[in-house]
Every structure is written in C-alpha cells, then in structure tokens.
C-alpha cells in the first residue's frame, strides 16, 4: 500500500519536477532516468493528442462504474462471510483496479508533459484528488476483505460498510453536517469494532444488563425499540437541533411559507399553488419513490441533541431513537419543563400532552400510595418501588385506619386535597381511637370522662417523669379497686399484698 502511495507521489513529484524542467536548465541525474523512460509515452501521446482527453474521461467513467461495482462487491462480502472463492475474486478485482489506476497515472504523467502549457495548477489538483479517492476506495476494499478473514468477528460487524460507501461515487462531501455525521459514525464504528475484537461476548452481556437496570427509565419512552439490537454503524444517525424538535411545524411551504405538522398536509396544501402539484407523483408519499432495483435504503436512527443524554450519539451506551416522533417525545419528557398539570390531583405534571390525557384517565384510581406521595394502581408496583428506594414506606390509607363513624365526619373536612402529609395522619387518628375505646368501656357509659386533649407527637417533648398523667385515669380502674376494697374487707385480706407481689412472692 505504502509503496504504491510512494510510487504515486514519486510520479506526481516527477511529473511536477518535469513541468518545471524546461524552465530549469540543470536537470538532476536522478530524475533523468525517469525523464528518459517517460519519453516513450510522450511520443505516444503526442500522436493522438486530440483523442488524448477522451480516454481519460473514459477512465473516469470507468472509475465511477467501479465505484458502483465497489458497492456490489461489498454486498457480496456482506452476504457470505468467508468463502475462499469470493476472496480470490475480490483479490483479483482489486488487482485489476490497481492496474487501472496505474494506467491512469501513467496516462496523466505522459500527458502532464504535454499539457503543461495549457493546464494550470487547479487542473493538476483535480487530478490528484481523483487519484487519491480511487486509492482510498482500494484501501477500504482491502480492509473489508481482510475483515472478513477474521474468524472471531461477528458476521454483521465484518460486513459493516466502510464510511464512504454510504455515498457511492461521491468523492467530496457535499454538506458539512453530513460530513460530521459520517465522521462520528466512522469513529463510532472504529470504537465498537475495537471493543468487539477484544471481548466480543462480555460487551454484549453488559449492554443487556444495563437494559435491565434502566428499564424504568426506558418505560417513559413508549416507542423505544427494546428488542432492536442494531449494531452500531449499521444505520445512519441523524440529529435534529433543539429548535427543530420543539418547532410546532416541521414542514413548510416553499412558496408561501406556511408551516405544517405533517408532510401529507403540506402536500395537500401545495395543490393550491398550481396544477403541477396535483399530479399523482407530486401527491405520492416521497419515501416510496425509491427504485425497487437499487440497493436497500440505509436504516435511519435519531440522536437526541442533549449532550450527556443516553440518547445522544456521544454517549458510551448510546441507544438511538427510532423515529422523529420518538425524538420529540423523548426530548420533551426528558429535557423540558413539565408544564401540563393534572386537573384532578393537581400534583402530577407532564410535558407531553398525550401523557397527561393518559394519566387523567386513571387519576384517582390509584389506591396504593407511598410516603413520598407517589401512587400506584397495583400493590406489587408499590412494593417494588419501596424495595428500590431507601426510606420510602407504604402509607396507610385513611379509610383503613379507623372505620368509626364518629370520627369520619371530623376527618372528612381535613381530608380534602392533602396528598403530601398522609403519613402523619395516623397520629390524629390514634387519639380518635382512644376516644372510641373509652366510650366503649363497660362502666363508662355515664360519660364522665371526656377525652379532650389530642394525642399528638408534639407532646412527647413536654412529657416528663410524671407526664403520663395526661392520660386520665379511667373510670374503670377506680371501680375495680373499689370492688376490691369491698371484697377485701369482706374476706379480711389487704389489697396491698396483691399490689406488692411481683411474680415471685417473698416468703
């Protein structure tokens, strides 16, 4: 390869030196041999100077054709990973190409001497570019041929097309953005290729695991291709700018400038601008134009413009988005403010209006709640959530706490709209339950004791050594002890004995 390059340079060098030669009187000995050898060519080309241009054009055409063939050839490689016969044909094909190139260079060299008067520097540059392009394509072929030889490589990796095959025949990148894409893609390709060569299996497993871990994150993005496992590089990555994503319209009329959300609507609109837009071809869906015989369309995937996002192509574990709609929803959900609030619970916020509508359908039906305020429609989801997050506890719903009728009226007023402090409600209810119990006591029916002081956690600080007196002694206890006194007097034993005897009696 290098030798060939050198050869090429030498040739160019020699030809350029040659072009200067008539001006410079002292011809170097080293170039002298070259000069003499090229003289034959010179003679030959002098003869058909007028025709001399045509063969070169022909060669150019051939090269374009070979570019086409190049793609076919690569597809051949793609189809069958390793076949000695294909390999042989590939090699001979390359040999042929090299010869062609050699001939071309010879031709140019020969012509260079003649045209020096007429062609300026620009023309020489053009030629140089032409040859470099051809050389690169040969190099790529060589690489891909060599790639198919490596046994451990995954099939689709070995068949991954080179960076330049995406634009067959186009030597110069027409647009800066595309160049950018292609460059990053090739970089991506190289990275992954290296990884795969080193440790093909573990890398894949690792990716799977990350899928599992971040499953909850993935769920937000409804149209994510979870099962799709496209190898990096097998698709084209497009990245829209933030403004494009957030723009209300994406299709604009070239004549009046009106914006549309859908291309179909634009096409319908275009009919008003003249009869030429009313033809079947103009109204047809543009995607279906592709000629059936040509090579299959390269799959398109999208990247999020937000740097550091997993959906951004710079991310290590980049996962592309499938459609433009995915891009829009993803960008709004993940990187935009949530401006739509649920009209029922006034808590949940959404950035995509469709999500809000979905939520509003189910809002209020979620009865399983966590202390953090999150509600769940299913109990197992709540427990999964609690298992995952430290410090979150299940919140006991109000109805379950005390089913007493007396407190429910009181509770009803405070119940409205407080979603956040549900965890604390238990304390109030605790006191309510005491009150209930007190009234339910036998011998308490006269209702002398009203349990007014609410039992709240705040009281604990003030509760000192004798603080338990805030629980009034129950009527019942008194009645019991009076009973005891009665019996004690009757039977002649003192109640104090009973009182002092702890489990083991002293004798």
């Amino acid at each position, binding site marked *: 390869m290098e030798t060939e390059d050198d050869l090429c340079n030498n040739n160019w060098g020699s030809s350029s030196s040659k072009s200067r030669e008539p001006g410079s009187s002292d011809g170097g000995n080293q170039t002298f041999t070259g000069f003499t050898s090229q003289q034959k060519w010179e003679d030959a080309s002098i003869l058909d100077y007028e025709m001399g241009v045509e063969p070169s054009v022909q060669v150019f055409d051939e090269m374009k054709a070979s570019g086409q063939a190049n793609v076919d050839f690569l597809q051949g490689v793609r189809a069958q990973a390793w076949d000695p016969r294909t390999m042989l044909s590939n090699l001979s094909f390359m040999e042929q190409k090299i010869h062609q190139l050699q001939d071309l260079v010879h031709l140019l060299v020969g012509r260079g001497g003649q045209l020096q008067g007429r062609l300026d520097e620009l023309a020489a540059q053009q030629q140089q570019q032409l040859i470099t392009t051809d050389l690169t394509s040969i190099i790529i072929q060589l690489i891909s041929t060599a790639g198919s030889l490596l046994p451990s490589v995954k099939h689709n990796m070995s068949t991954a097309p080179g960076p330049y095959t995406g634009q067959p025949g186009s030597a110069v990148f027409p647009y800066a953005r595309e160049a950018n894409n292609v460059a990053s893609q090739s970089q991506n390709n190289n990275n992954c290729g290296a990884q795969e060569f080193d440790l093909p299996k573990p890398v894949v497993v690792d990716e799977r695991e990350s899928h599992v871990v971040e499953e909850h994150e993935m769920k937000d993005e409804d149209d994510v291709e979870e099962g799709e496992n496209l190898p990096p590089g097998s698709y084209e990555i497009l990245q829209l700018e933030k403004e494009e994503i957030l723009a209300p319209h994406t299709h604009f009329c070239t004549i009046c400038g009106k914006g549309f959300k859908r291309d179909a609507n634009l096409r319908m609109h275009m009919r008003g601008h003249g009869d030429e837009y009313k033809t079947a071809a103009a109204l047809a869906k543009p995607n279906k134009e592709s000629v059936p015989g040509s090579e299959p369309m390269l799959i398109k995937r999208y990247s999020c413009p937000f740097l550091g996002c997993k959906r951004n192509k710079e991310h290590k574990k980049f996962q592309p988005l499938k459609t433009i709609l995915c891009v829009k929803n993803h960008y709004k959900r993940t990187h935009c403010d949530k401006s739509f609030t649920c009209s029922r619970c006034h808590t949940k916020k959404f950035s995509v209006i469709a999500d809000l509508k979905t939520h509003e359908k189910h809002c209020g039906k979620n009865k399983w709640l966590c202390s953090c305020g999150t509600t769940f429609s299913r*109990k*197992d989801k709540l*427990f999964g959530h*609690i*298992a995952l997050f430290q*410090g*979150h*506890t*299940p919140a*006991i719903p109000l109805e*379950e*706490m*005390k089913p007493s009728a007396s407190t429910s009226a009181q509770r009803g007023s405070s119940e409205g709209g407080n979603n956040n402090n549900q965890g604390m409600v*238990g*304390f109030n*209810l*605790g*006191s309510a*339950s*005491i009150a209930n*119990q007190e009234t339910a*006591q*036998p*011998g308490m029916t006269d209702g002398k004791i009203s349990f007014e002081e609410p*039992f709240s*956690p705040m009281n*604990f600080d003030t*509760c*000192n*050594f*004798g*603080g*338990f007196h*805030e*629980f*009034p*002694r*129950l009527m*019942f*206890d008194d009645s*019991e*002890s009076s*009973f*005891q006194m009665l*019996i004690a007097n*009757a*039977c002649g*034993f003192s109640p104090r*004995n*009973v*009182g*002092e*005897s*702890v*489990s*083991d*009696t*002293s*004798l």
Partner: protein
Amino acid sequence: MKKVKQIRVSKPFDLLSEELVFIILDLIPSDLKSFSLTCKWFYQLESKHRRSLKPLRSDYLPRILTRFHNTTDLDLTFCPRVTDYALSVVGCLCGPTLHSLDLSRSASFSAAGLLRLAVKCVNLVEIDLSNATEMRDADAAVVAEARSLERLKLGRCKMLTDMGIGCIAVGCKKLNMVSLKWCVGVGDLGVGLLAVKCKDIRTLDLSYLPITGKCLHDILKLQHLEELFLEGCFGVDDDSLKSLRHDCKSLKKLDASSCQNLTHKGLTSLLSGAACLQRLDLAHCSSVISLDFASSLKKVSALQSIGLDGCSVTPDGLKAICTLCNSLKEVSLSKCVSVTDEGLSSLVMKLKDLRKLDITCCRKLSGVSITQIANSCPLLVSLKMESCSLVSREAFWLIGQKCRLLEELDLTDNEIDDEGLKSISSCLSLSSLKLGICLNITDKGLSYIGMGCSNLRELDLYRSVGITDVGISTIAQGCIHLETINISYCQDITDKSLVSLSKCSLLQTFESRGCPNITSQGLAAIAVRCKRLAKVDLKKCPSINDSGLLALAHFSQNLKQINVSDTAVTEVGLLSLANIGCLQNIAVVISSGLSPSGVAAALLGCGGLRKAKLHASLRSLLPLSLIHHLEARGCAFLWKDNTLQAELDPKYWKQQLEEIVP
C-alpha cells in the same frame, strides 16, 4: 433466704458492699431472690438490682416501675388488660432502659400507647405483640417507629396486611427475629419486602401465611438466615419453587410441616442450596416418603434431625434416608402408622449416633424393632413409644440394659411390667417417665424406679391402676426433685400418698383427677410444704372441700391454675382463692351448692383471672353486667353442662378405646 438469715446473725453489714450483694444476688436462682423485706437497705438494694419484672396487675405499674427504675425486661403476660395509659406509664418511667416488653397476652391498647412506647423507649429491642387480633396496619406503622427493634413477634395479628408489614420492614432495619405466625392477611409482597429491607434476619416464622414460593426467592438470599418456619403454608408448591436456586449456607433449621402442596420436586429446589441444614421438619407431608422422595435429601447430608410425623413411610424411603443422611441424631416418626419392623430396623442399624427417637402410635411395630433399637443405639437419650401395643414385655428388659443414657421415656399404653421397670431403673439420668395406662405395673416395679432414678422430674401414672400408696411413697422418698406428678384415676391412692409426696418440695404440677380417697387433709399437707405449686387438678375428687382450698389459698401463693370441678367445694373455698394473686385459670363446674353471689364475689376477687370454667346454670344467675365487666378485664368464660358420667372400670375403658381405634 438462708443466706440473708446468716448475714443477720453475724451482722457484717459494714463489710458488705453493694457490689458484693449484687454478685451474690446474681448467683441465687432468679425466683428465690426476693429478700427486700429484710431491712430498708436491702429494700433499696433490690430496687437497684432487679432487671426483670413480671407484674400481676397493670394498675400497679406506676408504683412498681418507680421503685424498680432499672427494669430492662418487662413481662406483662399476667396483665390481661394493658391500656394506653399503662403503656405510656411504661414509656415514661422506663424510657431508654427498657429492652424487652411482652404484651402477648394483653389487650385493649391501641396505636397511641404503642407510639408513646416506641418514641420513649428508644432502646427497645424486643417486643411481643402476639394475639393482638385487633391490630391494624396503622398500629403496625407505629411499631415501625421503634427503630432499634431486633425481635418482633406478631403471631395471630390477623388484621395486619402487607402494608403494615411493609411499614415495619422499612422502619425496623435491625430486625433479626420475626414471627408472623397466623398473620393470615400478610402475603408474598410484605414478606418479600421484609427480606429485602431487613438483611439481618436470622429467624423467620411464616407459619400459616398465604404465601407462595415467590417470596422464598428473596428470603433465601438473606445472608444470616438460620431458622425458617413454613408450617402450613399451603401456597408453597412445586410450581412456584421450580425456578428457585439459592445458596443459603447459613440455614440451620427448616420447618416445612403441613405444607400440603409440597412434593419432592419442590423440596429438592428448596433444599438445593441449604448445604448446612441441620434440622428438617416434614411432618404431615402429603406425599409418600418413598425412594423418590428421599432423593430430595441428597443435598442436606449434614442433617441431624428429621421429623416425619404423620407421613406415610415406606421401608425403602427410610433406608434411603439413613443412607443419605447418616449423621442423623433425632428421628421423629410419630403417628406414621405404616412404619414396619423392617423399615425401622434398617434405619436404626445405620444410625449409631441416634439420640432421640419418637415412634408414638406406630402400631405395627413389634418387639423386634425395640430389640434392634436397644442393640444399635446405645446413646439414645429420648425414646417415645406411646401405644406400641404389639411390643412384648420382654423387649423392655433390653432397653434398660443397653440404653443407659435415657433421660426421657414415654411408655404410655404399653405392656411393660415390673421386670421392665427394674431394668429401666438402671438409667440413672432418667428425668421424665410416662407410665400412663400401663396396667401390668405394680408398686414393686415403681419402687425400683424410686430407688434408682433419683433425678426423676416428671412421672405420669395416669390410669395405672395397679399403683397404691406404697409405690408413691417410695417415689417420694427416692425422687426428691420431682416437679410433675400425675396420679389421675389411680383409685387406690389415699391421703398417705399425698403426705409422702409433700416431701418433694419442688412439686409444681399435681394432678389427681378421679381419686375418690384423697381428702382436704392430704391436699393441705402438699399445700403447706410444696411452695412452688402452680397447677392443681382435683376434678372428681369428691372428698375435697373448702378446708383444702383454704390451705391452698393461704400457702400456695404461686398457684396459677386450679380445677375443682365435681368436688365438695362451696363459695367459701372459692372466695378464699381470691387471696392468690397470680391465679389465672379456674375451673369450677359444680352443678349444685354454689350461690351465684358467692361465685361473683370470688370472680371479682381474683383480679388476674384469664379463664373461668363454670357450670352453665350459673350463666343466667350471674348478673350480665358482672360478666361484661370481667370480660373487659380480660377473663374468658366457658360454660359447661356435662352431667356427671358414670365412671368406667379402667380395664373395660381401655378395651372400649381399642375397639374404636383399630
């Protein structure tokens, strides 16, 4: 007490420092150390020293806890009614010193009291809330406030659901012992969360929970799990265990008894990682213990104890078990009616280390098995062979000769005779001997036991009608450590036996149901000298009257349970029982002679009463408000109305029994 007296005589109080007294007190058995009445100084010392309390009434908690302010363990099982007020007293007076609290027999507290307790007693490590059947998730959420909790018992808290358990799992991270037995509202999710959040769990009781094998995936990931109880978990089946692969090396004990849907497939995956399992209980398993079933035990070759009670066992299965697990020390085969001589012989031949064997009600076994057991298991400590009626009397001769280490022997309903007892009397460490319904034994045989087995603690002579006062007196003379004796339906026994038994001062349980010849005099003798008496059954002793109860009431201050049905007791005797502070259970099914007002007074007097068994006729005679009052105090009533059945001749009674059970 003796030590205290010696100190008083020499009066070396100046030499005695507090620390020394504390050391002395630490060495005295716990129930003898109430010495506070000696002097004021000792009174003060005791209040500093005592750590554990078991009060009889919750009403006195403020006074008791003020005095014993170092209380760490508080057992409220004698207090059937513990209100929120009482709990707040405990919280305020014990505060951070309290470590353990037992509320398993108490009721009528709510979330408010528990919260007070949880917030005040920050060092609470153990709490027993079993039988709180009214406990709901909100109360459980309050328990979760006790962050340092390590041992938690919630048995029979039927209203609890996954939500409450979830709160506890999140709040009490240090839990290492959890019992959720009979919490029928708790399922996979709650238990699974418990396993996820509380990584220190060592003992987990999930008996009778509606769980499936799903939560076991999480549970068996616990690093320190040692004991797992899955008794009666019908949801644990083969399907839910199919994918279970675990590596729970710490698991020592697994109780999978009564898991009806568990076959050998599920068991194989359940045991797949438990390489260090020592104890396995498979009682009342639905599948036949065959060769296939035994193959599931491959992984647990270190097994030391296996329980197969109530299973249908094949000889092949038994052979395979003893081949796979040849270090077994305890085997329980009670009520395995299909066990044959062949199977058991092959089992005991392999297991030379066998310590405990239970072959209760294995009715097919004959003397061959017993001979084999005696010959191959010299280390046997416990042998239970109730109702092995095919075993000939000669077989027992060998047991005494070969198994000298026996400590527990259950020979109820067997053909053993005096010669057998003579050989057994050479087992010097025998502590429990059951000879119920052994019709062939007489005083002669019993006298061998009395002379040989001086360590005997428990003797059961239920319906062994050959026994008279002579036999009992030899026992009372030789076995002074006797704690439990049952002489029910030994009709020849008179007061003489009771007088001689009064020598056994450690006697706690005395059952003499259906002995027509014992009177209050004999009972008084026992009451005076056996201070620890806790359980007395005098049913159908018609000669017992009030004077016996008066003696009991005066001397037996530790009495907890008494049955005086069908005796000559009147309300006077009953009323005197109110003097006994810790009386809990009382059974007075007497059809006539009791005045309702007397019974009412007696019931009111016994403040700690939990259960009262009365004649049904009293139900209508007692005022309804009184019954409600007692029920609110924690006393449950049982109303009996069985008219006196004619006593049957013991031999005829046994024949009748055998006809019923073929």
